[in-house]
């Protein structure tokens, strides 16, 4: 690894970090606007033109609040809880291929920080660690409501991780590779996985909502029952980090859904372009797909009410997992048939 490579990757990491945070900040604005539109309101429009400075005002408010740690709380776990959440939310973005290669300063720059050959496994591993942030935060708060929120989050995570993994395996079967780069390249042009695996996409989408603790699966932060859920005791920027990490993981999981099922940076008619033009266009196409996913996730949130916890478990174990398994078996048989193994 030469120095230029090191610089290139560092710049990419820094850029990704800033973009993820910026996108997360503006997701809060967009979510509030969307909620307002759906409810026939106007939404935040006082800070700057159309209220676009609202996230900055909110962030400043978060920083200026008193940073409070409850007396009976486990101080260190209380502090690292939001850190873990934020860390896991951000690190997933490192394996996503954001576009085709960019030629700059005589170098061919890959827009993927790390091309693991086990990209999907890495993503699932990191996402599972994400629940530790919530679990540790809820436990360390020494508050029954926080603990309830944390328990809900982790049981929900365990139930839905399974269906999520099984539905993603079908993509691995089709592509024959765990690397996200290979998966995206195999979906060249309009050859997207969603056309071959609509059921897997469907299951993956629902489980993603559950993993994100988004409506209709947002039981861990159910205000009416849990006074806010796992972050009840949190204030100031620690709370800010929790909320922020939620939006960051929404951004990242929209990116992963786009990567696995909607062709990542591929777009129809991409063969007509090459070089940097293609790179820019592919990044734009990818960003558009991510935006659409975020939009749909928010749209769902402001449309349907929350599940009850037993309904949530019922859906996870008795519906999604069987559907995912049957889908996986059928895919396996078809793949084996095509390969001539049967």
């Amino acid at each position, binding site marked *: 690894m030469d120095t230029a490579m090191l610089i290139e990757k560092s710049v990419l990491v820094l850029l990704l970090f800033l973009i993820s945070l910026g996108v997360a900040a503006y997701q809060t604005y967009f979510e509030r606007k969307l909620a307002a539109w*759906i*409810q026939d309101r106007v939404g935040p429009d006082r800070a700057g033109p159309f209220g676009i400075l609202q996230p900055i005002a909110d962030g400043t408010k978060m920083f200026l609040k008193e940073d409070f740690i409850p007396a009976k709380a486990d101080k260190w776990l209380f502090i690292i809880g939001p850190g873990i959440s934020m860390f896991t939310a951000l690190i997933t973005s490192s394996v996503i291929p954001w576009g085709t290669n960019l030629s700059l300063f005589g170098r061919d720059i890959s827009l993927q920080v790390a091309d693991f050959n086990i990209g999907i496994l890495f993503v699932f591993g990191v996402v599972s660690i994400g629940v530790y942030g919530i679990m540790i935060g809820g436990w360390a708060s020494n508050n029954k409501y926080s603990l309830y929120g944390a328990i809900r989050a982790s049981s929900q995570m365990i139930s839905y991780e399974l269906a999520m993994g099984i539905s993603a395996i079908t993509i691995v079967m089709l592509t024959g590779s765990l690397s996200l780069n290979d998966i995206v390249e195999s979906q060249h042009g309009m050859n997207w996985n969603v056309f071959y695996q609509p059921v897997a996409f469907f299951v993956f989408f629902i489980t993603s909502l559950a993993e994100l603790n988004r409506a209709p699966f947002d039981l861990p932060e159910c205000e009416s029952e849990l006074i806010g859920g796992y972050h009840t005791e949190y204030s100031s920027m620690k709370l800010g980090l929790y909320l922020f990490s939620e939006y960051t993981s929404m951004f990242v999981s929209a990116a992963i859904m786009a990567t696995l099922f909607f062709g990542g940076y591929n777009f129809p008619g991409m063969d007509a372009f090459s070089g940097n033009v293609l790179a820019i266009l592919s990044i734009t196409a990818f960003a558009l797909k991510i935006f659409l996913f975020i939009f749909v996730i928010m749209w*769902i949130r402001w449309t*349907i009410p929350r599940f009850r916890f037993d309904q949530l478990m019922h859906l996870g174990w008795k519906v999604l997992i069987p559907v995912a398994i049957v889908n996986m078996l059928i895919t396996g048989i078809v793949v084996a048939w095509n390969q001539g193994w049967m």
Partner: protein
Amino acid sequence: MESLTNRKKVVSDKPMTLWEKIYIPAIVGGMMTTMRHMLRRRKTIKYPEETRVFAPVYRGQHVLKRDEQGRENCTACGLCAVACPAEAITMTSAERVKGEEHLYREEKYASSYEINMLRCIFCGLCEEACPKEAIFLTDRIVTTEFERDEFIYGKEKLVESLDDRIDITKRQFTGKRTEK
């Protein structure tokens, strides 16, 4: 019993059909509803920048009119106070003395005239009762205050000023003036 409205609905708790059990059609239907709302035009009036357009006959803060020569119309007959359902109006009358003909139209006038804006319900009955076309409700809004007694408006606030006459022609029915 015969139902009084056409909104009566028979409620049933039949077990859900498969179509209902998979929820997706219902969710998609709900999402269509929210999408329709999203695309709807906002009806919000962003207050400090925009203000609501009042109807020409809006009933806001009262005015005590003067006639064309700038003389007060009110003769302190008290009919407005009698008509007032909220008992918001009080007045004392006085006799016009020589040399005051340019101030008051008739021999009797209101030396004090008070409306308690906290009691007033802006029904407009005072205006209807007035035989002299002296009191009218206007499209002005009673401003907010911090003290209760500031809401008792005396003549200094109610009588229109000579330089800044208040137009009430929209509130007058045609021909009313001749009748009064």
